[in-house]
């Protein structure tokens, strides 16, 4: 009954006493190595001139959109949260993109990885909250609206962390399992389509995981959204979209 391995944790590659090296850790290291090598390679050709390399342009686009999204969600200066959120986004996205390499199973398809990532969020929420508003006001928000809500607030804190982990795990694992099942029924072509769908799912899940982490952190911050950071960087894009849409509607009227 257990011929389909449900997790990469059970594949132990190397063991020394209590120290085990399973496939999940190895695949995480591969994703980390890809990220580190790319960053080192990227750093060598960084420049502040007008002409920049393609890689730098891609990296700037990614970082800028992450910063925009964080600024929109939190309504505060995004620079404090960028290292934490962007790290998780890049790791999850790289892991799911590497899933197209034959033999590579994304480490996020194992519950231990996603639980560890969700635990990082669980720890980061009070750290950012206390940093932003101090110990007393942060702890006082658990007593809102009345002190009767204290147990519910605590349970909500735990259950949303668990939900964060299960969501990512279920999505990534389902891609792997559906691929394996379809390989038995219809080999060759249909599993490829599911792999493509898995790529989209992986990117969306990486986005959702980091956005939800940011939403959880933002809920612990003080409620004084700085309007200058909300939608600040979107203005140029919106203006461009407006121009396009107005010209389009003008053209449509002309017709």
């Amino acid at each position, binding site marked *: *009954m*257990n011929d*389909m391995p*449900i997790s990469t944790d059970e594949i132990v590659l190397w063991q020394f006493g209590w120290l085990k090296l399973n496939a999940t850790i190895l695949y995480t290291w591969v994703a980390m190595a890809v990220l580190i090598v790319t960053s080192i390679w990227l750093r060598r050709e960084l420049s502040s001139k007008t002409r920049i390399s393609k890689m730098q342009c891609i990296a700037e686009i990614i970082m800028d959109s992450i910063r925009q*999204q964080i600024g*929109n*969600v939190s309504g505060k200066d995004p620079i404090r949260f960028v290292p934490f959120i962007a790290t998780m986004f890049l790791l999850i996205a790289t892991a799911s993109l590497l899933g197209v390499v034959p033999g590579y199973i994304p480490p996020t398809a194992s519950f231990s990885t996603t639980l560890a990532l969700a635990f990082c969020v669980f720890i980061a929420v009070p750290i950012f909250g206390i940093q932003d508003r101090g110990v007393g006001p942060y702890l006082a928000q658990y007593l809102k609206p009345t002190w009767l809500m204290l147990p519910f607030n605590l349970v909500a804190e735990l259950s949303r962390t668990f*939900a964060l982990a*299960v*969501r990512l*795990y*279920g*999505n990534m*694992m*389902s891609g792997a*399992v559906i691929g394996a099942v379809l390989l038995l029924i219809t080999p060759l072509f249909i599993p490829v389509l599911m792999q493509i769908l898995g790529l989209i799912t992986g990117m*969306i899940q990486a*986005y*959702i995981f980091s*956005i*939800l982490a940011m*939403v959880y952190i933002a809920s612990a911050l003080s409620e004084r959204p700085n309007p200058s950071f909300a*939608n600040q960087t*979107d203005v140029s*894009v*919106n203006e461009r*979209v*407006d121009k396009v*849409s107005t010209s389009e509607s003008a053209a449509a009227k002309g017709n």
Partner: protein
Amino acid sequence: MDNTGIIAMVSIIVAGLTTTLGSIGPAIAEGRAVVQALASLAQQPDESNTITRTLFVGLAMIESTAIYCFVISMILIFGNPFWQHITGQ
């Protein structure tokens, strides 16, 4: 029928039922959410950033119920604790 047969039968039937019922509800809910979001996008294209982001977060929240059901049916089929207890693995 002995215990092993009952456990196997109940596990398989319930696994199918879990995924069936657990995907009907979120499918309806996601459809309604997307319909509403598309209507809002048609009314206010300027707010597309906010609407899309909220839609994605909401869809993730809705979809997680389906994912819970899927995980439970996977556990029932591949990692059933009662089955493992009976077969002594």
